[in-house]
């Protein structure tokens, strides 16, 4: 009998290919007759395009086409040259005006990449510069430069939540605290840049793209070209990293338009700087006002959130609802008022960054709570315990919380870091101070959302699982094999998994929000149940027994009580003359909290993701440099599918989270991004990994409960506040603005000395 593969360290199916370099990524894909594109980008952050001289480029060797936004607007094969999840406000190439420095204004298609590059350098757009706003608070004020004429106040999404009577509760509060926190923009930096190939054949578009959202890309492309969805096929190979950068729709419309105009298959691969120009994390400014009673219970809360949408809406308008429901954190909030506003600015359009919209608020609420604890003289872990949500508690949305384990997660990380013991280490030089901090977070999963899956069994004995979930290094294809194998009672080795291809693999909303393992698992479970039932029916007929007497064992049917009567599934199908038997399963979650943007309430998430981190830092008081020496992360996984990969998710999240905590940020000068490369923009290197890095993926205590939850981004939102809290513990300075740059910490230490002196 095959052992259930859930919870076993089944190796990644493609591990060998990944290690020896034979893994196929979109970057390796070629189509016969393929030409190459190079994008011309705006040098100015805001302005009206007066002309784009393409004549010189068009005459250069190998050049097939030079395309501008005006060309797209005039092309009647293009139904609508605009795309976007929240608002269709983004053209593949700027039409009429440019809205950020780095925005595509033209694309050159040539026989070779080198020719395309050479020609692109000769295209010089004439742009009448207009005043620009790169700061979201500046953009929110009356009279600010208008990014989109259709949105004259730069508003890009607004949500509000109101519960209880915050005003009355503030009036009775023992103490009231008000602080403002900021987090900067950042880039997810997948090592594989955005890359795609578009191929038009007989009015049908095939798009190979490094995307996390293949079905959404298909729908958007169909919309742009006025095609039926079936006329667009999107194929996604495993990604060389995504982290949100390849969510939604990115370069696909531009590549498809270039291929259409050039009349050739066209490939585009972005350079590193262009990845920085394509997607950015939302910068945010967050004001938290909290009233506590004498015990430190948070009885009144007011949260005001402002997110920088960048130049185009993408997911920001709806995303502000997620910002609202994630901002109270894992705490009881009987009286609370929350507003979240997105604002257009003349900066790189925003999108997902692992822990999207959550890392911002988590830094704010977990720093804020620490500040309150310190002022009240209550241990920060204890103050959290007094406020944490438990099963049955009502959340700020009014929904009843279930399967929440915040208290256990907090205990786990506090114990792991040695909370309550002295952080000082023997042998530290006198300029080193140590401190510890903790943070606990919650995160909603996209709700409602839909995932479909299919499992097929064939007469030749093969079994195939179909899902449009994208493997971006997390090992999703192996997870799908394990989940399908578990549901079928076979070994994962015998389950083939098909890469996403919208012609073949069924609909899936997105590989994002830590949702796939949960959603695909349920869909695959339904598919497997139906498939096993159908096989049993065929077998019962063939063996002339009742269906109820047919059992499945290791990919074969046996008759209950007569194990010798065993027929493989393949043989059952062959005997029945059925080449392939397939069944579909569907996961569909229902929510409803966001029906009224100004009155968010109800179910915001089918499951609340839960994570915690504890950190120990060493701060050099002469330089301000923060070194994270130890880190422990904990997440609630429900049931772990693959312990090694789940651990790598939690620990990888921590490592990734250290970047925006300590040094990652977009730096702008006069509207220009000045560090769009990996020499000037820092990401953590292997030497930045804490000397001690550990994690725990918590499972159901109830062994009968097999619900599986995602673990892809449970620790990342807790990293920055845990580290900032540890810095405070070490040296007594509170940094409310990320990143915790050495210079920023040193200036705070200087200010503290001045104040104390």
């Amino acid at each position, binding site marked *: 009998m095959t052992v259930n593969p859930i919870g076993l360290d089944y190796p990644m199916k493609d591990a060998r290919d990944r290690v020896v370099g034979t893994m196929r990524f979109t970057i390796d894909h070629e189509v016969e007759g393929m030409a190459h594109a190079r994008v011309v980008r705006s040098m100015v952050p805001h302005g009206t395009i007066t002309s784009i001289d393409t004549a010189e480029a068009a005459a250069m060797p190998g050049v097939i086409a030079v395309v501008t936004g005006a060309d797209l607007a005039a092309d009647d094969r293009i139904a609508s040259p605009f795309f976007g999840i929240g608002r269709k406000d983004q053209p593949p190439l700027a039409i009429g005006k440019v809205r950020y420095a780095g925005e595509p204004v033209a694309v050159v298609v040539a026989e070779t990449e080198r020719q395309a590059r050479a020609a692109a350098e000769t295209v010089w757009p004439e742009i009448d510069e207009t005043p620009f706003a790169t700061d979201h608070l500046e953009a929110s004020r009356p009279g600010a430069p208008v990014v989109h004429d259709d949105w004259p106040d730069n508003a890009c999404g607004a949500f509000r939540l109101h519960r209880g009577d915050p005003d009355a509760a503030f009036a009775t509060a023992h103490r009231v605290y008000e602080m403002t926190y900021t987090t900067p923009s950042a880039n997810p930096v997948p090592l594989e840049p955005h890359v795609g190939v578009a191929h038009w054949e007989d009015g049908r578009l095939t798009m190979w793209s490094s995307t996390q959202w293949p079905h959404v890309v298909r729908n958007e492309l169909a919309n742009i070209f006025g095609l039926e969805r079936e006329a667009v096929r999107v194929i996604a190979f495993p990604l060389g990293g995504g982290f949100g950068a390849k969510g939604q729709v990115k370069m696909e419309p531009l590549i498809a338009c270039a291929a259409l105009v050039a009349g050739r298959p066209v490939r585009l691969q972005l350079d590193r700087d262009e990845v920085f120009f394509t997607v950015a994390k939302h910068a945010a400014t967050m004001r938290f006002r909290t009233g506590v009673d004498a015990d430190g219970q948070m009885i009144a809360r007011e949260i005001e959130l402002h997110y920088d949408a960048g130049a185009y809406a993408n997911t920001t308008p709806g995303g502000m609802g997620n910002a609202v429901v994630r901002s109270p954190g894992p705490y009881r909030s009987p009286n609370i008022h929350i507003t979240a506003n997105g604002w257009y600015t003349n900066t790189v359009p925003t999108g997902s960054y692992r822990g999207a919209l959550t890392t911002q608020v988590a830094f704010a609420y977990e720093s804020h709570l620490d500040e309150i604890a310190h002022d009240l003289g209550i241990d920060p872990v204890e103050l959290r315990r007094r406020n944490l949500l438990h099963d049955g508690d009502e959340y700020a949305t009014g929904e009843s919380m279930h399967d929440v384990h915040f208290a256990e997660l907090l205990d786990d990380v506090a114990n792991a870091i040695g909370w309550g013991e002295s952080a000082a280490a023997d042998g530290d030089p006198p300029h080193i101070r140590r401190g510890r901090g903790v943070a606990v977070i919650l995160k909603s999963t996209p709700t409602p959302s839909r995932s479909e899956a299919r499992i097929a069994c064939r007469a030749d004995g093969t079994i195939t699982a179909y899902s449009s979930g994208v493997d971006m290094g997390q090992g999703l294809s192996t997870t799908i094999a394990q989940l399908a194998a578990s549901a079928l009672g076979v070994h994962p080795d015998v389950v083939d998994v098909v890469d996403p291809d919208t012609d073949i693999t069924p609909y899936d909303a997105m590989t994002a929000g830590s949702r796939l393992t949960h959603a695909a698992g349920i869909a695959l479970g339904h598919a497997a149940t139906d498939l096993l039932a159908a096989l049993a029916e065929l077998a019962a007929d063939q063996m002339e027994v009742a269906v109820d007497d047919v059992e499945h064992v290791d990919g074969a049917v046996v008759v209950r009580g007569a194990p010798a009567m065993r027929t493989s599934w393949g043989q059952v199908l062959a005997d029945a003359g059925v080449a392939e038997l397939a069944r579909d399963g569907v996961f569909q979650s229902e929510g409803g909290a966001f029906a009224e943007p100004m009155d968010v309430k109800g179910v915001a998430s089918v499951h609340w993701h839960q994570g915690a981190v504890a950190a120990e830092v060493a701060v050099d008081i002469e330089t301000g*440099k923060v070194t994270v020496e130890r880190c422990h992360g904990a997440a609630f996984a429900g049931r772990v599918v693959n312990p090694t990969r789940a651990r790598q998710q939690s620990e990888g999240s921590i490592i990734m989270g250290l970047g925006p905590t*300590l*040094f990652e940020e977009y730096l702008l000068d006069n509207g220009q991004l000045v560090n769009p490369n990996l020499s000037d923009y*820092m990401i*953590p*290197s292997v*030497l*930045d990994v804490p000397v001690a890095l550990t994690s725990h993926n918590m499972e159901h205590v109830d062994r009968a409960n097999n619900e599986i939850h995602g673990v892809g981004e449970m620790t990342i939102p807790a990293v920055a506040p845990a580290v900032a809290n540890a810095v405070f513990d070490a040296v007594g300075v509170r940094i409310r603005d990320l990143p915790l740059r*050495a210079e920023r910490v040193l200036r705070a230490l200087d200010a503290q000395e001045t104040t104390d002196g």
Partner: protein
Amino acid sequence: MLMMRQGLVDPARLVSLERLDALRGVSLDDNTLVLGACTSLTDVAADDQVLQRAPSLAYACQRVGNVRVRNRATIAGNVAEADYASDPPAVLITLDAECVIQGPGGERRAPVREVITGFYETSLAEGEVITAVRVPTWPSASTYHKYISRSSEDRPCVGVAAAARFAGDEIARLTVTVGATAELPQRFDDVTDAVHGGVLDADTRAQVAAAYAERIEPISDARGSAWYRTRMVEVFVRRALEDLAHAHGVAGGVR
């Protein structure tokens, strides 16, 4: 490579020096280390003679970039690139290293200090190449501090190289060079000469550190503002001198 990728330079031809074995390796000429121009930073850092006679140079070479960079980068290439934020030049200048330069007019020698003349600029004439870097081994103690303000693979915010020879308790000679803070590596011999004959005690260390902080006009960039760099110059010159003081009397110095 980075400059090519960013379109800052566009060479018509690239000539590989990969197989010039004669220019690779470390030898000793009297008391001077002779580093073949094409010796990789990895090989310099691992060489026993360098580790014994110029440990601060071995350390600085070992801290450049990452292992992939160090395996490709050469010691002469590092000097000729004249990158203000590179680690080895400050150490080489502190040790009085000189370049052996071969050109159409024959061979000449020039101190590293005079070869590097500006941001990515050198005094190398058309047709001249560096064939070796000669490193005197006069110090009894030497050290290098690479202060990184951001990711561990970042280039330094401030790099401080220091070297000393002692006569009894007295400083017989002291040199200090600060890199990564200005267009050129900063070495002020009048500051260090002033303490020759004295003891490298806390007061002296603080005096030299303060003088360096005052004399250097630092650049501002994402690794630190001018204000911050001035503070860091003082901190790391002091810490470098503390290393030398602690190492005094210990064979080979520190690092």
